[in-house]
């Protein structure tokens, strides 16, 4: 009876592997017998099948059980388990038997990420991978600090792999220093749906590259051009004019930027939640005052904003939803500015006042009164104006404080 039960197991009732199995196609099966297993059986066939079983001998039963096990049971179960496995383990599974191979490669959700972080010869590897059918729905490509990726590879992607890239959601080219505007044009022309683009520490990138980006990818939500020193206000204009839904922007060390460019951005990218202006010391209060336009802002990094005064900070404090605020080296700020933040930004959890000598114990007391439970990170190193900033005192003022250092 065991064999009969095993076969009935798959034939009757609800599909046993649930939604995952329902949504994929096992492909052509080699035999009628196999097909029969997968379909609900009409009554007339049922009695015929019972007749069939009673004729089957013991060797055939063992063979059929093997058959079912290796071609049905194992692939189905492995599919259910697959989301818990690393890419390396998935590759090993692909090489186990053709039935597992077929089942797994058809499950497109398993093949959405291509990660070549820090790999050598990454350009060629990426091209080879994208020529495999299972990556035709890739959503994320990571080439962070990958070696041997340059414009020629990206151009080849455009000519040979553009189909596979059209659903791409996220592209990480951080540290790929050989890529220039040309490469950016080539790759972004293949992925109109791109939402996240990151290309930090690339000094070859210019405003032309950003122009290509905004033309090719209309829906960018997260943009990181940290360290792209040759970007100017022109790029900020492109961004402002095209990305009204932008949520996060990292402009760390883009030293050519001025008030004029940033102002455009603040006026038009009103969905911004995270803005990183680390090591940008040319901005002035004129533009800092406009920060209050960003009502959704949660993270603001102003490390090194040496021109920021209490007046500017007071405007910034109108961003009531701020959770993280980095004022490291904002040396013109005093108690007045910090107190306006304390009073207005009641959701603050992380604050750095590193190196601000004009801040005193008064700031800490006010902060403590208005939001002591929420603050988990506070950096007051170098704040020589604060007389008591021992660990004990800080914990007394901010009981949930866990981290005492932001700036290294």
């Amino acid at each position, binding site marked *: *009876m065991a064999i009969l*039960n095993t076969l*009935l*197991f798959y034939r*009757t*009732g*609800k599909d*046993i*592997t*649930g939604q995952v199995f329902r949504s994929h196609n096992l492909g052509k099966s080699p035999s009628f017998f196999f097909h029969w297993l997968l379909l609900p059986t009409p009554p007339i066939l049922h009695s015929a099948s019972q007749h069939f079983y009673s004729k089957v001998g013991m060797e055939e039963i063992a063979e059929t059980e093997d058959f079912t*096990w*290796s071609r049905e*049971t*194992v692939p*189905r*179960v*492995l599919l*259910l*388990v697959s989301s*818990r*496995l*690393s*890419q*390396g*383990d998935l*590759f*090993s*599974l*692909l*090489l*186990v*038997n*053709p*039935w597992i*191979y077929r089942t797994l490669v058809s499950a497109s959700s398993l093949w959405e990420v291509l990660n070549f972080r820090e790999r050598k010869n990454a350009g060629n*590897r990426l091209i*080879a*991978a994208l020529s*495999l059918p299972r990556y035709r729905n890739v959503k994320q490509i990571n080439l962070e600090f990958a070696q041997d990726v340059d414009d020629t590879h990206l151009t080849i992607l455009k000519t040979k792999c553009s189909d596979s890239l059209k659903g791409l959601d996220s592209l990480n080219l951080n540290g790929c220093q050989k890529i220039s505007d040309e490469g950016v044009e080539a790759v972004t022309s293949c992925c109109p749906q791109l939402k996240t683009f990151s290309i930090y520490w690339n000094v070859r990138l210019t405003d032309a590259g950003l122009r290509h980006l905004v033309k090719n990818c209309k829906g960018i939500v997260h943009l990181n051009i940290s360290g792209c020193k040759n970007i100017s206000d022109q790029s900020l204009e492109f961004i402002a004019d095209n990305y009204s839904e932008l949520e996060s922007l990292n402009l760390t060390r883009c030293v050519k930027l001025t008030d004029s460019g940033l102002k455009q951005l603040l006026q038009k990218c009103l969905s911004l939640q995270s803005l990183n202006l680390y090591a940008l010391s040319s901005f002035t209060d004129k533009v800092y005052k406009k920060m209050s336009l960003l009502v959704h802002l949660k993270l603001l990094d102003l490390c090194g904003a040496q021109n920021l005064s209490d007046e500017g900070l007071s405007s910034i404090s109108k961003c009531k939803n701020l959770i993280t605020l980095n004022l490291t080296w904002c040396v013109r700020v005093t108690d007045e500015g910090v107190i306006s933040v304390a009073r207005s930004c009641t959701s603050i959890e992380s604050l750095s006042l590193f190196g601000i000598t004009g801040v005193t114990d008064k700031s800490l007391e006010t902060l403590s009164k208005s939001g002591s439970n929420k603050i988990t990170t506070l950096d007051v190193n170098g704040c020589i104006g604060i007389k008591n900033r021992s660990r004990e005192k800080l914990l007394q003022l901010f009981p949930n404080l866990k981290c005492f250092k932001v700036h290294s």
Partner: protein
Amino acid sequence: MSSPVEQITVVSSDGDEFKMTVAAAMQSEQLKQMLTDDSISIVKVPVENISTEILVKVIEYCQKHADHEAATKANGGGASDSEAEELNKWDAEFMKVDVEDKLFHILMAANYLEIKGLFDLACQTVADLIKGKTPKQIRKIFNLKNDFTPEEQERLSRQHNCSFD
């Protein structure tokens, strides 16, 4: 509302009947939905896809976890660390089953009946068996033959090495 049901009967694909307390049955989302739907009056629930051997194991799991939940509630809500650890140990022992005969079928039964804890446990057990193993080792664990032709095998390995090695 009909009088409260305290037990239900489930029938395996072999035709054997088993009683389950309602608390144990509630571990299964499928059974839970049936139990909480007043329009259905339950006498016996056939689980056509699950053999007696597997059903016994599944019911054992459900009962243990239902008992644990009841004990936790009685103690005022939080399971102590040692109780949680004890349950984990029990789970680990419970999962020491033969791969071919039981493990995979338990996994599929848990999927069918939507018993999240058991499904996750079984999936993790299988995943742990696979982690870091070569194809050859995996075949051994799951008692599989290498059905690839030498040419297919060569082609696939090359494909893989080209991109990922």
